[in-house]
């Protein structure tokens, strides 16, 4: 069985004074310090990043990481759009399944604010199908189509969606690494400008810089020396069509559903055992669909359930969602997001989440999505 034994994240936000690899370096040495491991004790590295090749003509990042870490080991980059971090984590876990007594470093990072929003949006669009790109369909546009369909099918309004952002901004106010620490109201969300109808600025995760890192190990001696440790019960990746139009259902992310079914089966626990979850709220609609597709809520009920705010910290619910602030408030440096989600679950399960600590939890889940649902990664940790 493999364990997560340490987590470090940089601040998320508009970090103009730092380059992509400044952030990567901070995350690497931050997590090594947390776990009291030397660089020479790392046996392999997995790096989640989407845009460096597209935006800054910067590939072959494994070799750059070797230069930073000053070691000569296998280092791989994983790319699965916004699920790059989750995919890197999954590969690291599989590496441990195939190799005993190893320590593996997983880093996710993205540098998005060196460019104009239009340039970054073009870069992100590379994760959509050619036809979607030609039609000028941005990622907000694709999720807006899902939102428009969902609201009409089940008779909800934009106000139902707004509850997601209000909750996640409240959580962000409790996380000092979050990009936005400002609480917002339903009115703030509803009065914000449209990005892609019916989604508005405050339904949408921001463009962010940041890097996050975790260390995984299956070496019992290393685990014994650690103060904090969580067991990886499951890590599953499922892919689906890149085009939204090719999916059987517009209001369902099948990859999430299948990854969750597989993860719960392998973890041998049930949905009701999960006390804490980080789900991929790139847009407000995405959190509602995630809660349904993960099997926490019934299909079509999410719009109503979110208005009860039982998943908000402090409301006494059995399952608290996105205590990091989610992608919405913590920020969404796309390659880092999947690692930050797992890191937040690690902090919560090991009692290190400070002013947002959820009590009496044993199991946590992270769900990371790439594109409009072409990749989903579901991870379950236990303490």
């Amino acid at each position: 069985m493999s364990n997560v034994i340490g987590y470090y994240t940089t601040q998320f936000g508009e970090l103009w004074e730092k380059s992509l690899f400044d952030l990567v370096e901070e995350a690497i040495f931050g997590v090594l310090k947390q776990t009291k491991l030397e660089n020479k004790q790392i046996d392999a590295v997995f790096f989640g990043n989407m845009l460096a090749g597209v935006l800054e003509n910067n590939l072959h990042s494994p070799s750059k990481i070797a230069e930073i870490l000053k070691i000569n080991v296998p280092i791989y980059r994983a790319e699965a759009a916004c699920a790059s971090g989750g995919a890197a984590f999954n590969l690291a876990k599989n590496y441990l399944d195939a190799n005993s007594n190893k320590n593996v470093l997983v880093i996710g990072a993205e540098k998005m604010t060196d460019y104009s929003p239009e340039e970054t949006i073009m870069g992100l669009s590379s994760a959509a199908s050619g036809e979607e790109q030609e039609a000028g369909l941005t990622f907000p546009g694709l999720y807006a189509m899902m939102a428009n369909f969902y609201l009409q099918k089940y008779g909800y309004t934009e106000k139902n969606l707004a509850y997601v952002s209000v909750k996640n901004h409240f959580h962000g106010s409790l996380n000092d690494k979050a990009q936005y620490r400002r609480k917002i109201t339903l009115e703030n969300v509803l009065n914000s400008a449209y990005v892609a109808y019916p989604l508005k600025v405050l339904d949408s995760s921001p463009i962010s810089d940041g890097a996050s890192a975790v260390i995984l190990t299956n070496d019992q001696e290393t685990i014994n020396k650690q103060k904090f440790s969580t067991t990886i019960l499951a890590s599953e990746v499922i892919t689906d069509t890149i085009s939204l139009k090719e999916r059987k259902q517009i209001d369902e992310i099948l990859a999430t559903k299948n990854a969750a079914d597989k993860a719960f089966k392998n973890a041998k626990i049930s949905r009701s055992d999960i006390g804490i979850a980080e789900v991929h709220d790139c847009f407000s609609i995405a959190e509602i669909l995630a809660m349904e597709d993960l099997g926490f809520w019934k299909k079509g009920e999410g719009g109503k359930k979110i208005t009860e705010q039982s998943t908000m910290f402090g409301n006494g619910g059995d399952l608290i969602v996105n205590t990091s602030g989610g992608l919405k408030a913590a920020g969404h440096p796309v390659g880092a997001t999947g690692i930050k989600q797992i890191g937040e679950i690690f902090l919560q399960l090991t009692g290190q989440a400070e002013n947002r600590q959820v009590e009496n939890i044993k199991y946590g889940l992270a769900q990371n999505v790439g594109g409009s649902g072409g990749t989903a990664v579901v991870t379950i940790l236990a303490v």
Partner: protein
Amino acid sequence: MISPIKIWRRQKEIRRILGKKGKILIWTKIFTPGADFKKYAPYPVILVELENKEKIYGQLVDYDEKDLKIGKKVISILRKVRSATEEGVIAYGVKFKPL
């Protein structure tokens, strides 16, 4: 990146889907576009099911707000779809107009 060769290759496919009738399955309106589409914003994008059941995305042009609804009948037309490339080649593609 867009290249003249990619535009040329795409033209062959586009001919096949011009002048086709269909109905809107889903729609959105983009207010914050990528760099190549900045001058068209805000613009609606629709997913259309053609009469032969094939599904195609495209922008809706020459429209009124009341046309933005599921089930609205549309027809595919040839329009410029992006700003010209650095080589000056104009990318034409499929858009839709209401029927």
